[in-house]
């Protein structure tokens, strides 16, 4: 079963992060990538996002494109990245979502992917 792990966290810390902090975090994510690879749950799908200040939200209404600056919801914790994992069941998904470095300071929402028949 495929699950997407959506990584949410507060972006406040990023501004104060030093180059070493960022390097350390990248290292943690690299190690996590190896962990899921070895466990056989990796799908190769997963990305980190630039901060929500770079977001643009688009709506189509009555044939018109409405574009606004910023993310669709101004919440304290913002989507910062995701992984798609292929797991046995939700217990395995929870186990590997909990190992995502961002889970230590933010949170990870797990959603099963819809299986489209055919």
């Amino acid at each position, binding site marked *: *079963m495929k699950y997407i792990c959506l990584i949410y966290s507060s972006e406040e810390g990023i501004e104060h992060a030093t180059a070493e902090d960022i390097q350390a975090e990248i290292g943690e994510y690299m190690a996590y990538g190896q962990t899921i690879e070895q466990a056989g749950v990796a799908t190769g799908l997963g990305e980190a996002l630039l901060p929500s200040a770079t977001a643009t939200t688009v709506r189509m209404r009555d044939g018109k494109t409405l574009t606004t600056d910023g993310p669709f919801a101004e919440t304290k914790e913002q989507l910062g990245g995701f992984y798609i994992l292929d797991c046995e069941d*939700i217990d395995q998904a929870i186990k590997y979502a909990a190992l995502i470095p961002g889970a230590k300071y933010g949170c990870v929402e797990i959603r*099963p992917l819809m299986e489209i028949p055919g």
Partner: protein
Amino acid sequence: MTQSPVPNSDIEQLFQQVYGRVLANLISHLRDFELAEDVLQEAFVTALQKWPESGVPNSPAAWLTTVARNKATDRLRRKTKWEDGGDAEIILEKRGVEMTPADEIPDERLKLIFTCCHPALNLDAQVSLTLNTLGGLTTAEVAKALLVPKTTMAQRLVRAKRKIKQAGIPYRVPATEELSGRLNGVLHVIYLIFNEGYSATSGENLIRADLCTEAIRLATVLTHLLDREPALNKDAEALGLLALMLLHDARQSSRTAADGTLVLLEEQNRNLWNQDKIAAGIAILDQAMALRDSGPYQIQAAISALHAEAKTAADTDWPQIAMLYTGLMQLEPENHIIQLNHAVAVAMAEGPLAGLALLEPLADSLQDYYLFHAAKADLNRRAGWHEAALLAYQAAVELTQNEVELSFLEGRIAEVRGSLN
């Protein structure tokens, strides 16, 4: 087979008794919660038609399992004919299901308990689902027991079952490394069911005994099942919880007077306490403590046992109870309600002033908790400070919706007013 005619009410009762076990087995076999429920319901309808004439089979559980399985196979066969001409047996085989004969149905309820109490479901859903599937209560019965409208309950159950299927919540006993955490979740759900029955949050009926009985039954099944799994150890806290509930439940008939009013522990008629349940609770607590793995349920059971063993309220071993509360406080330092109970025990052991001194620091965190004000009022009354007692009783009245508790508090207010004049 017996040949005497059987009334429908007996069949219904029998059905509820075996429901959890048969359902667990069907889910294990079919790997599909909703299908298992549907075919079990159909098998029950068949039983209602057949049993009154043929008599109840020797093993109703095996009979229902076989009939339900056949209905499931028929359904899958019909469905696969539509889809791709496949074969129901092949589908079941693909799902890794063995076609074991139904006369030797293994007890799969432990798996079902862990599915229903999975942390990916919210607590209300866990409680409702456990009552519905393991307890065999109908949607209407669960709704009534938990004081929720029937439509809300139906939605809650449907949503939970859908999530189990769609989010891939597994049907198995968790692996050893996660077992203890998951077992705590299960114990918590059972304890909530018991508490819901023992002290209803609102309404006229302080005790809904059926929920207490159900929680005790679930804990009994759980401890037996844990005992039987070769890979698992006896769990001291599961036994502790069972002991705790039995000891509380033993006092149930003395908690309300004939007119429905609340009777406090020290004023209860101890002759009404159920000595069989007390003996069973203490024996189970001894088993738990022999495992030397202490925990909050065992400590609470030990406190309850000390109350149960006191011949009169004055004989209560309050210093020992206060010490047990100190032990609980070390396990759960953030739990202010334990601190409140500790303060009351100290007051009983050393006098109301010692207790009031311990209550003082809790005033902020427990200001919305009616039992804090009730306890404060009681200690002031015992200390002879009637005005302070009156104020605290009035604060308590503002915070409870339970009519039995309200009428108790109003009785005390009248009493304290009498002493003031």
